[in-house]
């Protein structure tokens, strides 16, 4: 079962803006798009809204946008797509989700989880939370996004344990994939999309 290199099955925990959230055990290499839209699995996006993005493997993995989800859920294919299989916690966002708000939730979690032993993670996660919070609140300053990206670079691969990497990888991908939204926050002091659904 599975693909040539990733054999066997895996339980995927589907959550977020999805009609049928839950745990699905599928073969590795199972198509992500099918997992989300197939009536036997996710059954499509809540309220039939448009898909905005997916975190395919838990809070520490880079995002995939709508045009990237036609991909097999296995170790190799997801790496090729720029993300990771991770824990298999698939989080789905629809079009009305503010990506900056998502990142704020994620970095808040990582800041809280940081043990404080090594410098980049202890100081960096707290700083990132402060910066992202400011942008989300409409108080971001020009240059903040570049600063965030740079700080992420200074944490990635520089910490004792992978928590530092985990904290910054989704942020880096969110900036890469949704740069316009970040810029909008800073220029217009408000959100491009209306976030009306908390999960």
């Amino acid at each position, binding site marked *: 079962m599975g693909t040539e290199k990733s054999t066997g099955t895996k339980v995927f925990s589907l959550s977020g803006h999805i009609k049928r959230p839950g745990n699905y055990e599928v073969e590795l290499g199972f198509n992500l798009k099918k997992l989300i839209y197939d009536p036997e699995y996710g059954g499509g996006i809540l309220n039939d809204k448009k898909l905005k993005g997916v975190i395919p493997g838990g809070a520490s993995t880079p995002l995939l946008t709508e045009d990237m989800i036609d991909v097999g859920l296995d170790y190799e294919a997801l790496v090729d797509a720029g993300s990771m299989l991770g824990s298999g916690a698939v989080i789905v966002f629809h079009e009305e989700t503010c990506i900056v708000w998502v990142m704020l939730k994620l970095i808040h979690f990582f*800041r*809280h*989880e*940081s*043990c*404080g*032993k*090594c*410098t*980049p993670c*202890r*100081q*960096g*996660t*707290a*700083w990132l939370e*402060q910066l992202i919070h400011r942008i989300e609140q409409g108080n971001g*300053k020009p240059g903040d996004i570049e*600063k965030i990206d740079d700080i992420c670079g*200074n944490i990635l*691969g*520089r*910490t*004792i344990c992978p928590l530092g990497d985990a904290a910054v990888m989704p942020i880096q991908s969110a900036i890469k994939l949704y740069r316009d939204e970040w810029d909008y926050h800073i220029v217009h002091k408000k959100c491009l999309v209306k976030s009306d659904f908390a999960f």
Partner: protein
Amino acid sequence: MAEVAKKEGSTSRDTKTVTLTIDGRSVTVPKGTTVLEAALSVGVQIPTFCWHPKLKSIGACRMCYVEIEKMPKLQVSCATEAADGMIVHTDSDLVKRGRRAVLEFILLNHPLDCPTCDKGGDCDLQNLTFAHGYDDSRFDFQKRRFIEDGVESTFDDLRIGPEIILNRNRCIHCYKCVRANKEAFGEYDLGAFERGNVTEINAAPGQQVDNPFSGNLVEICPVGALTNTDWRYKIRVWLTQTVASVCPYTSSGSNILFFKEKHQNRVYRVTGRRNDDIDDGWLPDITRYGYQIIHSEDRLRTPLIKKEGNQETATWDEALAVIEKRLGEIKDKKGCVCIGGLIDPSLDNATLHSFSKLIRRTLGSNNVDFRIDYRMLPKTSSDNYSILTSRPFRIADIDNSDVIITFGSDLLKEHPNEYLRIRKACNFHDSRVFSLNPYAVKSADVAELELVYGIGADEAIIAALCLAGVEEKLVSIPNPDQLKEATGFALMTEAAAVCGVEPDQIKIVARALAKARKVTLIAGELVTRSRDRENIASALCNLNRVFGIEEKGQIAVLSRYANSMGARKLGVLPDPPAVVKSELTKLWGGWPDTEPRNTDSMLVNMKKEEINGLIVMGADPIMLYPDREFACEGLEKLDFLIVCDLFESETTALADVVLPICSWAEYPGEYVNLEGRVQQANQAIKPLYESRPGYEIVELIADRLGQKLFESDEVRRIEIEKLLEVDNGLSWPDSFVNTGWTNEEHDDEFTVPLAVGDDPHHCGHRTEKASSLVNFCGEAYIEISPGLAANYQIEEGDSVRVESPVGKIIVPVRISDFLDNDVVFIPRNFSSTPVTSLLMRKCRVDRVKISKVVS
């Protein structure tokens, strides 16, 4: 990431090497060395905050990044083991960017209050930011602050111990203080609390950071988070200069640096001067803060002469004239044999040697001794006890001993440096430690097994070990019957029963001793202070013979004071070993033909008025001698007493002439540590007030008595050098020695055995003048076990009356965490509560009765 928990000194047992390239240089290091240490070995400095040469690496600060070819990410060099063929770059652009990022992170929440920070100018964070950091900050938020009670200030200064002040805002979380406290000192009074960027260092709940090594935490702090009251807000470090010296309180002679102001005649602090052979860079607090006595307000400033019962200020000339007249009178009327000399063994070689020559050549007697705080000393120095005090011993060899035995010693109090060594051997080399003590001591916390034997049964426990070796066939000796006869026990179990220790436990120690590859056996003060020290020493000689300890390691009774070893080597004893005596005879062209008199017999003769004059150099026999009444009676009968000291004491109060002596910082001197290593203490400041160095005082007295002691300083130096080269020629006895042990009868009224020793923050009458040390421990106390406290319905802090047949004192109670038998402990050398008033010189075990003082 190829991170390893690197063990300090792990290189010592590994002979394989690896070769790598660091910044284009080929480096060969033992396997197990970290990249950082490999770089250091060729002089490549890698910046660090959390790395410490004597602690395990944790790779927390991330400052020591290096780039290693074929590894995709930056590596922390402190936690990466050097491997063959590695190509390391310590200064590439990537490395520089990495360091700069770390400094930016560290500085985010650092208050940058450098202008008011004591660490300014001496701060790793300042220095490394200067060398590697940004000149600006990209952080535009409010810095995290720990604020007590809503006070808006970055001066978040918490006193977390008698001396230590913590500023949590300055802390950069290198965790060195917590790690050193735990790994090196075995203390848990300091910890890290919370997590993430609100992690804070603080004292453990309900505790004070008051361990005897706490000063080191301040010294290793890379920023100004931990400071001490000793140095705080007194001077900027760049206005000071350093002078290398050694500690006058510990017999290992910790290496220290004095920080003195360039133009004032004043020392501002003492820090370690790492010497891996001796101290590993750690200083006990007594060494660190003990320097404060130098500038104590209570220093004797001028000579004093007793006139009609009152001591009055005098000039040196007047004082020396009185000495010339009065000593001359005694000399002429009664003969030189009626003058004696006692000298403090923490004085330097020149003073000790001059003093010995003054007594022996100028005054012509053998009434000289440095062992003032021991009872019933042997008159000759060729006994088994002297053998054990002069065996070769190296502190650094403790590290790689796989079995370490401490016998009758509370090392933490007597030999703090050696205690840390044993702890290190345990932590880093998995050495097995066994402690044999007549009462449970804190120092035994490193021990795998602590055997607490009946007080006074010292010979019996050693006999039991010897017999266990034979009975268990761990060793084969040609004449086991002779051993049985010598020890007085036919069976191990008999000896074990006498000491009240389980035979199985004795077998465990015997087995470890027999199997050991390398042994260190340290016998301490409980042996040296015993009336029957010779018997105990003989027992140790037998133990050495049975297990061949010295053939595979070292066995020694450690010297107690900073220059006891020097005093012994220079023959400042009534009857030095034959070879020392003949060398001295050769140097001086003669030897006094008088009976050798040690401290005890001098006091006896003073009482009999057969010694009428006494010169005391730097000591306070009334406080030190373990029978206060006896010492007082002797000294009071003297016709003429000269005392040279730094401070007034009970002995100076009796003196006819008091001369102010210099402290060790005020003249250059040489000290011989317990290993026999000669160490130089340089002059840091000019003599204070009218004080003079000890040797100068001795020479002035000799001049007045009509003899120039030395043609020149050079002559004295050569004499000392020759004596230090002499091997005392004492060797192990060539058969088992009879130790004969009998139980001492004791009075039914006085039942509680009393142990007297040192407090870790106090050593001799002088340290009471160091205010920081007084902050740790200002007065004597009695330590009693919880069980005994319950019996007497005593609680912590209560006052207790302690009575012996000869005296009584009242002291506050401390309930001990570790004493588990009915022994009580009282520290000595507190002038307010002289415990020596309870002691009797002829007793083997001092016993007292205690009762609660009802207020």
